[in-house]
């Protein structure tokens, strides 16, 4: 996170022209947090996860199908979430994801880090939480 902050400040210092890639990088870095936070609330299947993120961010954050699943698989590989096929009556078979113990630990850490980051943005860059 510190690295990201340094990176951001360095890029900001380059010029007045805002560099979109820094924001993209921050978004990318926050993807894990969004997914972990969502499946921490409730088990979700892939499409629902993508839709929830899009809806709750007011369309600010979207995933393509491939990047969503790439992230899900990466998180699953790191044992932060766990997927399993479920067939519910009257519904098609879907793979639901739920958070694991280590996922919860990771989520807590990320929440703290991002909290500090947002505080720094507010304090230093005058960014106000929306």
């Amino acid at each position, binding site marked *: 996170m510190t690295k990201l902050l340094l990176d951001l400040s360095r890029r900001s210092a380059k010029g007045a022209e805002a560099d979109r890639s820094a924001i993209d990088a921050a978004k990318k870095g926050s993807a894990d947090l969004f997914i972990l936070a969502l499946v921490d609330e409730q*088990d979700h*299947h*892939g*499409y*629902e996860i*993508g*839709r929830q993120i899009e809806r709750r961010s007011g369309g600010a954050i979207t995933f*393509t*199908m*491939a*990047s*969503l*699943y*790439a992230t899900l*698989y*990466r998180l*699953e*590989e*790191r*044992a932060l979430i*766990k*997927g*399993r*096929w*479920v*067939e*519910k009556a009257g519904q*098609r*078979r*879907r*793979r*639901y994801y*739920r958070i*694991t*113990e*280590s996922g919860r*630990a*990771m989520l807590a850490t990320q929440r703290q880090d991002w909290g500090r980051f947002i505080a720094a943005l507010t304090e230093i860059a005058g960014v106000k939480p929306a």
Partner: protein
Amino acid sequence: MASAFNPRDEVRRHIANSGIELPDATIDELVAYLEDLHANAIEEGASPGEARRRALKALEESAFTSLQRHAVTHPDRQRAARADLMAATSGRRSLNVMSAIRLAVRQFRQHPTFAIVTVLVLGLGTGAATTVFTVVDSVVLRPLPYAEPDRLVTLWDTNAEKGLTHDPISPVNFMDYRALPVFSDAAAWWRPGINLTETGRDPMRVNTIEVGGNVFEVLGVKPQIGAGFPAGGPMFVTNELICVISDRLWRSRFSADPSIIGKTISLNDTPYLVVGVMAPKFHFPDDVDVWQRVRWDLTQHSRAAHFMEAVARLSPGTTLEQAQSAVEALGTRLAEENPRTNKGYNARLIPLLDEELGYYRPALMVLFGAVALLLIIGVLNVATLLLTRALSREKEIAVRVALGAAPRQLITQLMAESLVLSVTGAAVGIAATLAALPLIVAFTPVDIPRLSEAAVDMRALGLCLSVVGVTTVIFGLVPALLLLRSQFTTDLKAGERGSSKGARRTYSVLVAAEVAMACALLVSSALLVRTVGSMMNTPTGVDADDVTISTVQLSPSAVGAPARGGTIETVWVPVANVHSRILDEIRAQAGIIAAGESNFLPFSVGWRNPFLIDGQPRPARQEDLPQAQMHSASEGYFAAMGATLARGRDFSEFDHKDSVAAVIVNESFAQRYLAGVDPVGQIIRTWSTNIGPLGANLKSPPNYRPIPEGLPAEIVGVVKDINNVPLGQTVEPAIYFSTRQFPFSEVFIAVRAADPSIAQTAIRNALRKVVPNVPMSATQTWGERFAAKTAEARLLMTILLFFGGLAALLAALGVYGLFSWSVALRTRELAIRLTLGAKPSSVGALVIGQSAVLVVTGLAVGLVIVRLAESALTRVIYGVSTTDATALVTASALLLAAAIIACVPPALRAMRVDPVEGLRAE
């Protein structure tokens, strides 16, 4: 057209365009996504065309290359791919039984270590079980080859006061019991020492019983040739000397000549007419070659002389219990009527089969129980192995279920795998049995009745097959159901953890059961170790491990006595002299340290006869006189056997027919009857004049008639107690006569020499010189004879120790497997504990602690099993109880230590979990 929207086709096309490959599982997920998106768009009011456009857009925006790495490396998908491949190799997705078996075989070929270990454990278990079953079946379970063998019982004297539970019966008492209506008939016998002598051939000792002429009728058997003893003929008191011989003697000595019937053979120089040859497998009561018909009246003997064995046939409809109570009632009455001879005596019936098997019946049953436990441990062990293996395939199975595999197919596959293992294991087991059985029959160090008839048959194979059936079901079905149950649960909250937890519980129960059974086995073997220890440590009163023992039986012709009707002077004085000359010849040879003879060896009970010490009040009735064992021993016997004279002197050549009668008493005698006085010089009076055809007191009047005041004898010495009762009983007071004054025709010669072979040569030379017509019996050292008394217990102990060790090893492996798996499964939990500040040592302690709880539970259950097996165990142990603390603690500690050692590696692994790696790990 919206209806033409097929997300699967679209995804496949997109994948193809990207030039990548994705596994079916990933494709399924992407398809589900697109279907959801499409359905959602329709729900939001989009036209089918618009919905399709949105879905395609989502597809187009996706760079599948980013997906490929994760999709391919994800373990879930790897397994799914393998599962797909497996299904494909069978030609179609559903597996039939044969292809399931082929697939199972292929899998085991790929992982041979697992398969070999499993098959060996199973093979060992089934092999041991089949072998022991075969032995138990032929030795214990098959009926005896007599008519209605269940009605046959043996009859023994007991005496609670003297601690006798299985004593030879007195002939007079036997005749009283025989008359009871609970018996159809009964026959009794004793075992004279008999030499078979023929002109021109070496004399040979033949195992002989002198038995009532009704014995074959009682058993319901007939000779293979000849008529046998005349049916309904006189039981005793006949001058007709007839005998029946064994098939073995007939073949080895008489070339299976059928004309032997009607010929005479010379038994101890007396001609006996052969009236029958028994069938080859007839061995009653044991290894007997000659059955002589009794020719003296059993009712005219003494009630105090306990030297006969008896078999009786229960009347039709009479139970053992009814007969036993009738016998006891009569026994009590006889004791009241004949207090001198029968005080404390009663009788006991033992089913003939139990009697013939003796120690082996309970021993084999214990062994059977032990091998069953071992087999169960083996099966449980393999079950845990397979369970772990199945759990590690949980994801593969999950994916296969997700891909639409029917539960039936999965069960078929898992059952096929367990079937392959069970059948191979059973085949190994049967092969092991076929190889081991002949070796066991040939090399068993003890003589187990009917063992030679043991052969693998359909019953044993049936047992093996049932083992295969049960193990297949346990191995295949249980893990399959366990896994499928967790897979089909629709309750997401139950989740993955739940299934692992359930499996861990199952696993723990399996391992605790293994520990319990191993505990039972180890405790049993520890009890047997204690038994053998206690047998070996029984004080014998002699120190004679290397002393050579041989028997010598002098016949009238060997001593130049008339064949029949001799007197003390013509028969017994020569017997005493010849025995003394033989001993003198032995002592004269180089390398001989001491030599002597006695009519009883240690652990044998002497003749119990009344006596009176001069100066002590004589009871009003003769029957109230005290009784003591009477033995005859020569000078040098105590020295040869390493017995210790506590006071006085040994016998000498001067204690002969014409000198004062001399006796030596044992310490028990001195303490009980001569406490506080010096026994040496005291006079003992006895009334024993002769012991049938066995021996005679040379100090008695020529007509053998007992004289009212008794025969006086001076105590010349006190010998420290030599054990004169079977193992486990208290030494009785004993009086030793000199063989020069109270000779017996048959005696045991004991020779202490620099080397047993020197002793053997000395005995052979002496016999050749003094009595060339007397055969030399097989010699053994006392150490060998004593070891033979403990051979049965030692054999059982060795086998149980082997089984116990194996069981402990398997149980330890089970514990190791459980905790290795458990630690691997809980890596993340342990990592979190470590992250949260838990010390590695406390994590290790956690694992060891959990294992200790499991093992202690197992131990507790194991001790309950021992408790349940108590009735069988008490019959094979001696000098220790089933609650023997040393045995219980040693066995438990051993098992606990093995289990703790087994969970040290997993505990160390748990302590070394890297929190970072652990959190990342699956």
